[in-house]
């Protein structure tokens, strides 16, 4: 029996050596993401072997909530992750747990990602424009979420007091949509797929889209300070692969014609099929909510500074957190909107 084990082991070892001449040098890394199209470049790079091209043996770890990927980076379970930027993220980053090195998705005009909707009752009472948000109640996941920041930007744009809006924290989309359908709130912020469903059920009216109203840096690519200090070439290699995938995504899904209308770019169908497979959802559903992702992972740096200031003003992020210390801009060239 033992002899057999040794024999089997030898065969397995031979097989590994024989089958993977490239993998010999490949550096093992783990990448954390949510199963969302905003993580598209990660799925594209994995599927098309861009990490392997850079000598990286990348393993994907999927999470179910935006709070989890940054924690996994801090605990060392993943080396890189992409997710939406929340107040909690900055609290963690401010303590030196993670550093932002590039961009994930961005709220951008023409890309309907998150809708503002009003219930029929509120609509009938005259809530027909985003300017009328003051004094209304709105269903959100939590305070400190991306929804909360979007509302903050909207308040600034239309000059109403964000504190006059009652944010109902329902800790999840199903509960939010239930409260909206039941008329327990006046408004909701909801991702495009849910928004289309609510609209077709006749539960409410879409008032506008976050991207059209207030573009901002929704998500980021980040790693641990330890990786930056000790494995810099590996981080650079990862960013190169990420950028290659991001630019393919950008070309396929973010192309606009001369009139500024979003059109299908090259390889649209191939990319959509790839993402649909990764999301385990039908392509038609994926096509509804494809976010804007910068081709080179460049960040709207000024917005990151503004986010930190906004959260600190709301008392949700510690005053000691410094936006500059949360960022490492040395991996991607040409970031936007750098503060002087």
């Amino acid at each position, binding site marked *: 029996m033992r002899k057999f084990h040794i024999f089997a082991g030898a065969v397995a070892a031979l097989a590994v050596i024989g089958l993977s001449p490239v993998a010999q040098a490949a550096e093992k890394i783990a990448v954390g993401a949510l199963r969302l199209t905003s993580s598209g470049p990660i799925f594209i790079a994995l599927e098309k072997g861009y990490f392997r091209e850079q000598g990286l043996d990348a393993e994907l770890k999927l999470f179910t909530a935006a709070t989890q990927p940054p924690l996994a980076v801090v605990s060392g379970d993943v080396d890189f992750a992409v997710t939406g930027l929340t107040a909690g993220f900055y*609290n*963690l980053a401010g303590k030196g*747990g993670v550093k932002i090195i590039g961009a994930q998705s961005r709220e951008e005009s023409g890309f309907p990602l998150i809708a503002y909707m009003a219930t029929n009752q509120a609509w009938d009472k005259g809530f027909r424009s985003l300017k009328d948000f003051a004094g209304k109640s709105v269903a959100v996941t939590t305070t400190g979420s991306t929804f909360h920041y979007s509302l903050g930007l909207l308040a600034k744009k239309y000059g109403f007091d964000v504190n006059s809006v009652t944010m*109902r*924290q*329902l800790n999840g989309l199903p*509960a939010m949509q239930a409260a909206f359908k039941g008329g*327990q709130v006046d408004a909701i912020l909801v991702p495009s797929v849910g928004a289309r469903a609510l609209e077709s059920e006749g539960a409410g009216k879409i008032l506008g889209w976050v991207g059209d109203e207030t573009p901002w840096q929704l998500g980021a690519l980040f790693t641990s300070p330890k990786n930056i200090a000790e494995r810099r070439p590996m981080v650079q290699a990862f960013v190169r692969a990420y950028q290659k995938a991001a630019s393919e995504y950008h070309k396929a899904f973010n192309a606009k014609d001369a009139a500024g209308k979003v059109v299908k770019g090259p390889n649209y169908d191939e990319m959509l099929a790839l993402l649909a497979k990764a999301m385990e959802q039908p392509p038609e559903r994926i096509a509804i909510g494809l976010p804007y992702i910068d081709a080179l992972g460049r960040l709207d740096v000024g917005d990151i500074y503004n986010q930190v200031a906004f959260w600190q003003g709301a008392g949700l992020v510690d005053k000691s957190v410094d936006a500059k210390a949360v960022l490492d801009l040395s991996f991607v060239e040409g970031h936007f909107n750098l503060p002087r």
Partner: protein
Amino acid sequence: MAEPQMREVAFRGGGFVLSPRRGAAAVFFALLLALWELAIRAGWISPLFLPAPSAVTTALWELALAGTLGLHVGQSLARIAAGWSIGTIAGLGVGFAMGIWSMSRAIGVPAVSALFPIPKIALLPLLILWLGIGEPSKIATIALGVFFPTAIAAYSGIDGVPRNLIRMGQSFNLPWLAILRKIVLPGALPGILAGFRITASIALILLVAAEMIGAQYGIGAFILSAGNLMQTDQLLAGVVLLSVLGLAIGTVLSRLERWLLGWR
């Protein structure tokens, strides 16, 4: 054959008699907290992973200074009191019916078995549709969690009442209500009170789930928010509050047990 030797033997049959050691628990906790604090001060554990006890105390103190501590505890206590009372009264009613009448038991046992394991959190969207996002849905979440264990405790408590005592009552031609009040109820009480201990803890656990529904104040809402904001010191401060609440409720139940079961 040698003469049996007499030998003085110390009394060995003490058994494992436990004598009270007052203060031992306090010393143990104090040592544990000191070690925890030291580990963080000395840099063995990063505060990123575990906040120091002093940081947790500071978070609690700041909460008290801001005046929101009372709001959080008050609102949570009100929800627990209402939810637990409704769940307990309904559970006792159903449990007694299941313990006394054959028909109720025939229907009740499978019904309880089928409905008890449903996770209350999964029902939140439905509860919101039925009851809205105000207090009723939060109270209903707790009441539902308390109802089933209470019903089970009550009917198995009644089952445990010695049959011959009931038969004796019947032989002496005691009225039905008197049998219930003087034999069944006292007999079932220890089991019911043990059930209270479990349901009180369940109510505390479900507080976090209940306060997921649009609560602005409450210990559960506070813990949820601290978790989302990665404010681990506040998160643990909230957990400490829950533990203290659990301890307080446990003490009250012990008093209640001593008073109600004094006849034993």
